[in-house]
């Protein structure tokens, strides 16, 4: 950031520079007053005191605007060219016979103010100029100071042009040829060209920028472009003639320029007021957010405040490694393009970030202002987001635990059927075969084997119940409804009253199934009636038990909670709502 700070400081007018700018303008104004009053016929302001006052006021307003608008203010035209444009504006009157010692300076500088204003406009928000703008300004300055200024002065002999009362031109080299007229025509044509290019360039920039950004820069930028454009029109009007003058068209355009310059100053001032309003609104935010705002409340308020409805607020718990939104969901900072992120740093760590339309918050002071004013609110939101993120992680890990447990149950069920049960059945068969061979010779042993066979059959039946209790195959094969039917077959006191059609996600089906199975396990007797139905993307399960439900429902809460569902239970009823997507 240091390079950027240094860069910013260059464009802030220090107190000494401010004093210098004011002093310079006062001097220019005094000289201009003398020149216009001395030779009103040659002046743009003419004999009108009002026009003269307006002329001097427009320049003064520009200088003042440049001084009050900090360089850090978003949407502000850059300060020093703006102040310079204000100071240069009255110089248009100085190439007059009444200019005295200032005459030569007037010959060089009379057309420089549009270049300075264009310069300020192109550097709006301390934006780097870029190749086209640099080329444009080079042509503009070369035209104003070079072609129309120094070069024209070198070949302008006032006496030869019939101005006998004109003061001496100290730059004159030779006024013999027609070079002055030709230079004037070339310079004015060039002026028309660069002004047209300037208007196109700014228009292109405005079109490319975001609506929020456009609103921000418009108040100062539009009148600035208008003033330069009016100068371009005047130049076009004067090409044929070869010099800028003060006929009625020139004067009308000049009045327009004057009004536009005043509007530039007003625009800058308005921006200043707006920025202040934003800051005080930010300060009020702290109070507004005192009463526990909903998640994202701060985001909405900041979006409204900064005029960017797409603004989002992200938070980081690990100094900018990972980001989460207000709901605690993982989010990513934009990697460029039309979105930008302004990071908010507290205690040396990145805690939050505003994601907004490009260049909305180019003003680092404003970002810091937000951080300061909304600190409590931000911290509150950040902690809430962190809490939600942790909850989501917890839920995910709960879901994994339940899924792992189910997978383990299914594996056990498989193993019991395919392993132990199969072996016991084979063993019972072997016992039967042995009995047949023994029947005649050893009746006692045959009877023993008969008992063993019965025991084996009982063991097989018990194993089957055990396996089924672990995880009913039908639940995986055919779903919740059929599994409920099967459970009712096995446990007659279960009465499935309503059973939803179709399949649900496996975790939803097993959660619903185990809610019912647990209700049976936890009631000693009495009917257990089940109503299950699909309702607005949820599987709603209502279990009414005639007997009292004993014990805690921790495992069920885990299952239901893992799915983001809800479980409500009293001594005889269970109600579970499971999000099921459809």
């Amino acid at each position, binding site marked *: 950031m240091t390079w950027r700070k240094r860069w910013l400081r260059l464009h802030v007018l220090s107190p000494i520079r401010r004093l210098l700018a004011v002093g310079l303008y006062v001097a220019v104004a005094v000289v201009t007053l003398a020149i216009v009053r001395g030779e009103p016929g040659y002046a743009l302001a003419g004999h009108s005191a009002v026009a003269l006052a307006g002329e001097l006021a427009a320049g003064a307003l520009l200088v003042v605007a440049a001084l009050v608008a900090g360089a850090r203010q978003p949407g502000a035209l850059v300060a020093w060219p703006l102040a310079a444009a204000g100071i240069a504006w009255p110089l248009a009157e100085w190439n007059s016979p009444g200019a005295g010692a200032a005459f030569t300076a007037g010959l060089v500088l009379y057309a420089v103010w549009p270049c300075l204003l264009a310069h300020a406009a192109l550097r709006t928000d301390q934006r780097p100029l870029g190749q086209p703008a640099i080329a444009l300004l080079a042509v503009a300055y070369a035209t104003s100071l070079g072609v129309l200024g120094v070069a024209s002065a070198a070949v302008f002999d006032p006496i030869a042009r019939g101005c006998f009362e004109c003061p001496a031109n100290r730059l004159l080299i030779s006024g013999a040829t027609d070079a002055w007229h030709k230079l004037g025509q070339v310079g004015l044509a060039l002026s028309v060209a660069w002004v047209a290019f300037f208007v196109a360039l700014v228009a292109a920039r405005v079109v490319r920028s975001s609506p929020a950004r456009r609103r921000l820069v418009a108040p100062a930028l539009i009148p600035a472009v208008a003033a330069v454009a009016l100068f371009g029109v005047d130049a076009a009007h004067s090409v044929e003639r070869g010099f800028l003058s003060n006929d009625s068209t020139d004067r009308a355009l000049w009045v327009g320029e004057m009004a536009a310059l005043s509007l530039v100053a007003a625009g800058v001032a308005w921006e200043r007021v707006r920025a202040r309003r934003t800051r005080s609104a930010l300060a009020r935010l702290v109070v507004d957010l005192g009463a526990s705002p909903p998640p994202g409340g701060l985001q909405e308020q900041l979006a409204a405040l900064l005029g960017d409805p797409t603004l989002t607020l992200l938070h980081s718990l690990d100094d900018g490694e990972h980001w989460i939104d207000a709901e605690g969901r993982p989010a990513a900072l934009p990697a460029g393009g039309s979105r930008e992120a302004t990071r908010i740093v507290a205690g040396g760590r990145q805690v939050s970030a505003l994601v907004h339309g490009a260049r909305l918050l180019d003003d680092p002071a404003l970002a810091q202002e937000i951080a300061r004013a909304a600190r409590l609110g931000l911290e509150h939101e950040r902690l809430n987001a962190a809490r939600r993120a942790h909850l989501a992680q917890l839920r995910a890990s709960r879901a994994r635990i339940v899924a792992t447990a189910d997978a383990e149950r299914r594996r056990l069920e*498989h193993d019991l*059927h*395919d392993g132990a*049960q*199969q072996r*016991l*059945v*084979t063993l*019972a*068969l*072997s*016992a*039967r*075969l042995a009995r*047949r061979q023994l029947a005649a010779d050893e009746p006692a042993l045959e009877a023993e084997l008969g008992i063993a*066979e019965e025991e*084996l*059959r009982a063991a*097989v*039946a018990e194993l*089957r119940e055990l*396996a*089924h209790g672990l995880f*009913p*195959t*039908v639940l995986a*094969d*055919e779903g919740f409804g*059929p599994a409920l*039917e*099967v459970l*009712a*077959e*096995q446990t*007659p*006191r*279960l*009465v499935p*009253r309503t059973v939803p059609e179709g399949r649900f996600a496996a975790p939803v089906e097993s959660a619903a199934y185990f809610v019912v199975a647990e209700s049976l396990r936890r009631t000693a007797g009495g*009917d257990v009636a089940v109503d299950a139905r699909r309702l607005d993307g949820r599987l709603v399960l209502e279990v009414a038990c005639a007997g009292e439900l004993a014990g805690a429902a921790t495992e069920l809460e885990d299952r239901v909670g893992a799915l983001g569902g809800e479980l409500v239970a009293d001594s005889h009823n269970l109600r579970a709502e499971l999000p099921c997507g459809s």
Partner: protein
Amino acid sequence: MRVVIADDEVLLRDGLARLLQDAGFEVAGRCGDADALLRMVNARQPDVALVDIRMPPHHGDDGLVAAQEIRRRHPEIGVLVLSHHLESRYAMRLLEKAPERAGYLLKERVSDLAVLADALRRIGEGECVIDPTIVSRLVARKRERGPLDQLTDREREVLELIAEGHSNRAIGQALFLSPKTVESHISQIFMKLDLRESPAHHRRVLAVLTFLRSA
């Protein structure tokens, strides 16, 4: 009576074969998976195929699927599925499309020769057989209203015994009823379940199916 045995457990397969041979059945073939079973049934045309529900390759319900396939391709060949599952759904799946000549017994019945042999014979005669444990579970179950509500308790007992694959004579003995009384109960059941139009032995099968469905 010619029987083929399909079970992937060799020891059980061979033991079962010996047991059935001793009881007078002819074991026409033995195999260990569903594909081999279908080929064997095709080649040897047994009277009944005795099939374990869980077989390679999937160890799920391969045996049941193969049994359904046999019923579809060879309507004259019966199937008896041996299963770990007490759930009536699996029995339903076997019986629903073609309820004749089909049976569903729990796996542990293999060592109970009397039940096994009786089931095989009844299937050979064109009836259907359901394991008594499954039947009694269905009967015990509380249910919403259905066609079985019209039956008297006695009629329901008779229907249960029909479902288990017993003959009229066996039912009479079990319930201490004369053969004539049993027959009148059965005709009442057929009437109440609206099965009067079907041929006689078919009606027994349909009655069992109604019982299974409404349970």
